[in-house]
């Protein structure tokens, strides 16, 4: 970490152009003067190392340990949640390995746009890029809303003020817009500090929860609810996805990563293994410290059941150590905010890079592909991402189910492009084997095939749980495709790295 000769050298746009040309396997002499000028204006720096990628990977999804997964415990119990979580951990471990292979072969900020563009045509590239944009944008919205809600809860646990929630959410959006405009290396350092803070918060939780741990609460009798049996595992699965969804945002950092063929696989694998440890330990201690039904729902003063947005804080507040020490509860809640903010930071990174890449390549308005003259950060993309998020935060004041919709759209669009990306991997491996010389995921054919099968299984289960979100998702795809067909298709920028790579295919 830290500044080094590479960072200094890479801040020179000419060096960055050389590296982009190397990554798309083009000779510099093959670039036309206008293409060089375009890359010089639109290239990103390359300062990220293994530790940065690890921090981005862990930080971007660590909020999943703080809220969301606990809703799967409702009427399903801890064992169903464990099995669903292990399935999700396996799916994501295989997914990041296959994704690393694709992102090393095509290390561009566009990620899925580049994979689809190279595999088939601009249409598939756009569908994949648009899917990831929706996934990241709605995850940004969900996390901003949860951060606001968490702050409101901290200020008044008995009756969180909706206005405080909206103001806190908006403040988070503004703060991180400014941080991201400042620069990628600087925000990478902030990300690392917040990630350590979020992990430290979980360690505090495990230690506190261990003081009131009971195996009877974890392995109940019967282990799966009698009324549901194995159906409980299927019902818990959509919520288990929230543990790890959005880690693929790290693949978008490939264009800003030094030696992506080494850095991306190592950083992603270390991040995923860290996250699996966090998932298992958090599940174990949370379910061992407090009854699983209480972790999922709470009864309001009016007698209605409400979902719990703060399961770990509730568990700490309910155990004897928390009852005796208010400092422990509030200290943990304060540290827990690191988790939400770290995730918000990482997801905003992914959203802005996807908007930037689609704009730079001409699929969305070209203005979105502009970078700051000196800091080389995608200001217009960050502004659009922040404005959309802020709009939803304000709308949540009246639209009570905004966070549910945001989570469900994000998860569904994610699963769609996982399957498409694995199709791209199979096609490109067969058609252009040399593309994958730098890095090859283990278990060559079975691993991506298993990702496809498990993702399809998750979509099937998910759509059975809540089909209301499917029309909204279809509408969002129709809007994106409408823009693409009537405007974007005619203004695709041939000098964008994703297009140069496709030209060289």
């Amino acid at each position: 970490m830290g500044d080094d000769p590479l960072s200094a050298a890479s801040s020179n746009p000419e060096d960055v152009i050389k590296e982009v040309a190397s990554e798309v396997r083009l000779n510099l002499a093959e670039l036309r003067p206008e293409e060089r000028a375009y890359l010089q204006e639109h290239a990103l720096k390359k300062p990220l190392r293994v530790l940065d990628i690890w921090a981005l990977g862990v930080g971007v999804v660590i909020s999943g340990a703080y809220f969301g997964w606990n809703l799967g415990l409702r009427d399903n119990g801890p064992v169903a949640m464990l099995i669903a979580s292990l399935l999700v951990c396996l799916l994501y471990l295989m997914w990041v390995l296959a994704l690393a292979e694709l992102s090393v072969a095509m290390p561009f900020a566009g990620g899925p746009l580049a994979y689809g563009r190279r595999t088939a045509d601009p249409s598939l590239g756009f569908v994949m890029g648009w899917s990831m944009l929706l996934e990241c944008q709605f995850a940004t919205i969900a996390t901003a809303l949860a951060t606001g809600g968490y702050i409101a809860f901290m200020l008044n646990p008995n009756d969180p003020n909706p206005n405080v929630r909206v103001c806190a959410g908006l403040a988070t959006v503004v703060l991180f817009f400014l941080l991201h405009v400042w620069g990628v290396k600087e925000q990478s350092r902030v990300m690392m500090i917040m990630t350590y803070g979020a992990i430290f918060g979980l360690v505090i939780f495990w230690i506190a929860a261990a003081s009131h741990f009971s195996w009877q609460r974890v392995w109940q009798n019967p282990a799966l609810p009698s009324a549901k049996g194995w159906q409980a595992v299927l019902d818990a699965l959509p919520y288990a996805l929230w543990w790890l969804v959005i880690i693929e945002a790290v693949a978008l950092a490939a264009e800003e990563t030094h030696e992506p063929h080494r850095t991306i696989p190592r950083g992603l694998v270390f991040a995923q293994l860290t996250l699996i440890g966090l998932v298992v330990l958090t599940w174990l201690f949370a379910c061992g410290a407090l009854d699983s039904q209480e972790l999922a729902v709470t009864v309001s003063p009016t007698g209605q059941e409400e979902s719990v947005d703060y399961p770990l804080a509730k568990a700490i507040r309910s155990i004897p150590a928390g009852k005796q020490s208010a400092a422990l509860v509030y200290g943990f809640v304060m540290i827990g905010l690191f988790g939400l903010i770290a995730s918000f930071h990482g997801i905003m990174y992914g959203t802005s890079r996807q908007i930037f890449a689609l704009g730079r390549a001409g699929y969305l308005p070209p203005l979105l592909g502009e970078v700051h003259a000196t800091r080389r950060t995608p200001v217009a993309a960050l502004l659009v991402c922040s404005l959309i998020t802020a709009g939803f935060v304000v709308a949540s004041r009246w639209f009570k189910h905004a966070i549910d919709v945001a989570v469900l759209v994000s998860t569904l669009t994610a699963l769609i492009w996982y399957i498409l990306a694995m199709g791209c991997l199979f096609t490109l491996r067969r058609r252009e084997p040399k593309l994958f010389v730098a890095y090859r995921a283990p278990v060559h054919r079975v691993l991506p095939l298993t990702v496809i099968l498990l993702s399809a299984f998750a979509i099937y289960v998910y759509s059975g749980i809540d089909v209301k979100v499917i029309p909204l998702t279809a509408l969002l795809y129709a809007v994106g495709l409408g823009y693409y067909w009537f405007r974007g298709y005619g203004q695709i920028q041939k000098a964008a790295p994703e297009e140069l790579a496709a030209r060289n295919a």
Partner: protein
Amino acid sequence: METRPQSASSRESAHKRDTGPATSGWVRLEQLTALVLVAVVVCVGWMVTAAYEPTWFRLFSLDAEIILVVAVLSTALILVSAAALVNTRSREK
């Protein structure tokens, strides 16, 4: 970690160098992992069947079935992790 700027030629040589592990132990690890992943897919199929038709294909007691499923999933996680780490490690040399 490297401290030099990466040129196109050094990148090409890195591409040629990084062909991954090719020992017989590695091949066996990949084959075993693939076998366990197939078992995971079978497990998922069985779970769906057991969820919708609770009386079909029941193997043991509920607790034994749970332990078996958790064991298959945990084994798959351990093997994929091991394969990923060995693969990554070979790139460090």
